[in-house]
């Protein structure tokens, strides 16, 4: 396990470094320099020169590349072009909103997806199982921003039962909770489908195992067999998928935050793209990428800890 942990950790660090290098060279190779992009078409050459010098863009590539890595390692992601604030602080301020949204989205997926898949597996090939199968595929296929838009249209604009905009009053937990319901459902719905299918498949596999037959032979209640023994094991494969899931949910969160005008990293990036605030965009992209790699790392380690067979894969 320790060997696996060390190798997996090493791989994660290498992947992040390569991703950072790719981001750096992408910026470097793209025609037009970040300074003119940030200043817009009406900037004078002197203004551009000043900003280029401030951002360190007048130095040789190798030096720039080295500085970029050192700064990121020191937690310095540069400075917001407009407000002159540190990008790291801006990103860290908006990150909690997105993390809460993602966690609650995952909560929806577990709350609805696990029972759905479990029920389908027990009632295999009944019409309820078939309906749940179609529903899961549909939930996976439909884009999350469409779900967000239709939720907004139905619950906030037409029926006016849930709030449409923002994250709620600071300190008012009930208000914050009602503001979370729609966006988290929109990003979690696809994962309701994924979990339902995954749990159904692994439940079916486990219900065919010998120890379940033995449990039946001992006369245990079907309910006890399903919930005490089978479901516990059926949940395991979903753990390995959670890492990837968090990455997808982060992408979905960008749309949910924009549609519902919630503060968060997605809204931050979107506003920065619109105002050509490129240090903020890059900083946020780096942080979310690191977060994604971290989540897959944790999920892989957890899966390897739970199931020693997974350790052989690396």
């Amino acid at each position, binding site marked *: 396990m320790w060997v696996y942990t060390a190798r997996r950790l090493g791989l994660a660090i290498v992947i992040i470094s390569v*991703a950072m290098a790719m981001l750096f060279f992408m910026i470097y190779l793209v025609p037009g320099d*970040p300074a003119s992009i940030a200043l817009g078409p009406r900037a004078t050459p002197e203004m551009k020169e000043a900003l280029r010098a401030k951002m360190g863009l007048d130095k040789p590539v190798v030096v720039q590349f080295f500085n970029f890595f050192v700064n990121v390692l020191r937690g310095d992601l540069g400075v917001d072009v407009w407000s002159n604030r540190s990008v790291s602080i801006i990103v860290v301020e908006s990150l909690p909103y997105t993390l809460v949204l993602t966690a609650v989205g995952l909560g929806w997926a577990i709350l609805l997806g696990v029972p759905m898949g479990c029920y389908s597996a027990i009632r295999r090939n009944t019409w309820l199982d078939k309906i749940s199968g179609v529903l899961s*595929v549909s939930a996976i*296929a439909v884009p999350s921003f469409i779900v967000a838009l239709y939720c907004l249209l139905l619950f906030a604009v037409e029926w006016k039962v849930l709030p449409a905009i923002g994250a709620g009053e600071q300190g008012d937990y009930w208000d914050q909770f009602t503001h979370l319901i729609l966006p988290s459902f929109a990003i979690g719905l696809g994962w309701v489908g994924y979990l339902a299918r995954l749990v159904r498949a692994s439940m079916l596999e486990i219900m065919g195992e010998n120890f379940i037959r033995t449990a039946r032979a001992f006369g245990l209640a079907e309910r006890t067999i399903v919930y005490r023994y089978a479901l516990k094991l059926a949940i395991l494969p979903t753990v390995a998928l959670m890492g990837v899931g968090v990455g997808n949910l*982060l992408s979905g969160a*960008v749309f949910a935050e924009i*549609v519902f005008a919630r503060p968060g990293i*997605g809204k931050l990036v979107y506003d920065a793209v619109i105002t050509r605030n490129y240090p903020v965009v890059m900083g946020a992209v780096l942080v*979310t990428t690191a977060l994604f790699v971290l989540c897959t790392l944790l999920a892989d380690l957890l899966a390897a800890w739970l199931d020693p067979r997974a350790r052989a894969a690396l």
Partner: protein
Amino acid sequence: MPAQLSDTLTTPAAALRREGFLGQAQRFSRDPLGMLGLILVTLIILAAIFADILAPYGPAAIDVKARLAAPTFEHPLGTDQLGRDVLSRVLYGGRIALEVALVCISVSLGLGLVLGMLAGYGPRWLDNALILIFDAVRSFPVIMFALAVVTLVGPSLETIELIIIVTSIPGYARIVRTQTLSLKNNEFILAERSLGAGIWRVLSVHIMPNVIGPLLILASMDVPVVVTIEAGLSFLGLGVRPPTPSWGSILNDGYAFIRNTPWLVIAGGVPLILTTLGFTFLGEALRDIFDPKLRKG
């Protein structure tokens, strides 16, 4: 995907020989969801091809008197904030969506095929280097990566296509690589090599036909993903430029005027939902028939 799994992947070509094409067509016709998917996909493709015949108005034609109108006989899906006929824009928008899907998937499929075969068949260091690059590309959340590129290059149809191609190559390449790795030490490949066949002959004549089948099924299941990225970026106003109609930009207008009329959001969203559902149902049915082992979870 662990290496053991790939050994058991059968190719569609092999499955076809066992059962025959007719038997498979029969099994497909008994799958109601697959048939529904096929019908939806056919209708969507036909609507996109014949958009200029089917559309009652031009996609940019303006009816000043009817702005943000609800559906009427003149405008079956209503009009937008400039008085443009939404049905016509939806039909032309389908063209953009399918065009992006066709271009992006064929280019990234081709590149993924070549890179994947090189990684699987080539020397170890090349394999490691390519895998590292694939994994690094996949570690960016797609939308975040797209936003970063759009900030640098500026929004356009070509930018979207570039983003989608770059982010889809690793998925195809990894599948091809595992397939190639499992094929490369088979007797028929070793025999061919001992007869003096070069790397390009082995790859193009012997490996590729065995790899391409599962790849095509994956490609049909990727159409919804690609269409969603295009519509998503256009929805954010960072994709197709106005006045070009796209389902995403119709949704963008609909979002801006959501308190005035629900029809724009409905008209832009429903075709997108039907397209993603249609291709997903079709792709899953094809996969279950031709290549059940591709099934994940």
